[in-house]
């Protein structure tokens, strides 16, 4: 489907969606939202690109390889933040007890490990959204109609 209106609109809207997604991720420890919702919004913008143009245009934005890298990296980062707490003398995933700098409540740079974790969660969720979407589309292209046996 090549629709000029859809393409132009999504081209206009996508940067705003992405900025909004990043905003939600970064303010996860201050306001409603956080890694999951922000990541989902960011991922949706990439899905929108692939929908409005085509799959190859979407893949150009974020390739399979970088998506899976971000996916593993996000989860891994979360787990490693927990391990850092352990090195700094707290229990696993400790925050204040592991002497992460807490800052002043309400400021962007506050909350110790929480914003770091939120960013990793956002990364993970955004890339997972995209990977899921790609897999759905490509699975159909690869396997063909699942109802037909032997396809």
């Amino acid at each position, binding site marked *: 489907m090549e629709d000029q209106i859809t393409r132009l609109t999504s081209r206009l809207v996508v940067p705003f969606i992405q900025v909004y997604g990043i905003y939600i991720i970064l303010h996860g420890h201050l306001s409603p939202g956080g890694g999951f919702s922000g990541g989902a919004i960011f991922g949706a913008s990439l899905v929108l690109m692939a929908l409005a143009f085509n799959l190859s245009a979407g893949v150009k934005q974020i390739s399979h390889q970088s998506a899976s890298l971000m996916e*593993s990296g996000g*989860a*891994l980062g979360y787990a490693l933040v*927990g391990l850092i707490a352990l090195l700094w003398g707290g*229990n*696993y995933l400790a*925050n204040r*007890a*592991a002497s992460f700098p807490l800052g002043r409540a309400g400021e962007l740079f506050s909350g110790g490990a929480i914003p770091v974790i939120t960013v990793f969660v956002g990364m993970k969720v955004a890339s997972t959204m995209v990977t899921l979407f790609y897999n759905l589309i490509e699975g159909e292209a690869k396997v063909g109609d699942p109802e037909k*046996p032997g396809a």
Partner: protein
Amino acid sequence: MTLQHHFPALIIVIFLICAFIMPLLFRWRSTLCAPALLLVHLLALAMAVALLVRLYAGGPFYYHLGNWAPPWGIELKIDFLRVYMVLILVGLGLWIFVYALKDLAHELKREVTGWYYALYALLIGSMSGMALTNDMFNLFVFMEICGIASCAIISIKESRECLEASFKYLILSAMGTGCYLMAIAMIYMVTGQLNFQLIREALPAAAGLYPNNLLVATALIIVAFGTKAALFPLHVWLPDAHASAPSPSSAVLSGLVIKIYAFSLFNILFFVFPASFRQAVPINEIVLWLATLGILFGSIFAMVQEDLKKMLAYSSIAQIGYVFMGIGLNQPTALLGGFYHILNHALMKGMLFMVAGVIIQATGRRRVKDLNGIGHVLPLVMIAFTVGGFSMIGIPGTGGLISKWYLAEGALLANRLFFVIVIVLSSLLNAVYYLPIIINAFLNPYEGREPVKPVSRLMVGAITAGMIAVIFFGVYPKPVIVFLKAALAAVIGM
């Protein structure tokens, strides 16, 4: 604080980290994947042993994630039974993984092997988490991880039956976790707590005010864990799922995954619900009768199966019944039998699924009828099958006898003669479908022109190790029995 203090969390975390790294590692250094996962298993095993040592020195202890004490934070509890489960999970997980190293090459496409390792690590890690957690909601999270990983580890073969089976499993397992989530909500509504111990303290007061809430929650919990652990009549997903999965997946799903749900149900029944509550509502009685039905019908269904792996899967439904029977009889000796059966059944069913995998790989046969004379071409493997079958029946010298013995003794001590008869009857039923295979395999001539494909020594070695372990735990069960007796005395005495 030393590193040793963090072992409870680290056992779970290293598996998770390993699972996250695996896809990356497979992309760039695919030869390192298997050694890395082996190393993680060994590390976790060492940590579990260290936990055991610490338990002997100082008794049960707790670990607060993020230094948040309950009711705010998640608490891990380390006691003898939980460490027993972790040791089984990690130890047998390692054993099955060694077998999987060679088997996967025949069953999976090469490019998904990295994902398989990731799922395997996720599965073992989440099960260790379920064994250690002392928090209702954390248990739910680990159940979800475990459920999704189990579905994926079945569907990874991408054949038609696998996809169908894992879809069925996905739906029913989601229903199970959904029931559990609602049960948590019901309990949280009236007690305001998620921690096992704190719920236990708050329940007596809440039970007087809101009895219906708690009744519904109890029913939901039984349905949730019954579905997950394939308690009869909620077992419908199991045969397809366990039969169509790759053989190492079948071994780990049948051997370990259904057990951990039974263990979680035990944890909730005995550590969350106060004893008075269990007397007021016949939870144990319900579990006991469902287990009895499972024991009988699982065996009867297994008899009519034509497919070897499907037969083994139905036999799992019967065998998990023994574990639930131990829980249901609510008697220390019977519980001991049930817990010993967790180890025994994990060993023998894991081994039998491995044998099935080897037979399929070597001869391409998976129908029970086609196994005539297979003992002549695969002697060692079929001897292992014989030992496993004997253990299922409960012939002396194998682990199966010991657990059935304690179960029967527990039933007698509880004055429930009927269940002794059930155990004896089910042994006969087991004999009806295991013995013909063994007899036909050794006494009939082998028919078939096609040459038997060679099987990796590592796979046969893993099977042999399993066979030795089954015999060992049947001939010398004392250390485990003494250990379990001490562990259960603390529970029942509460």
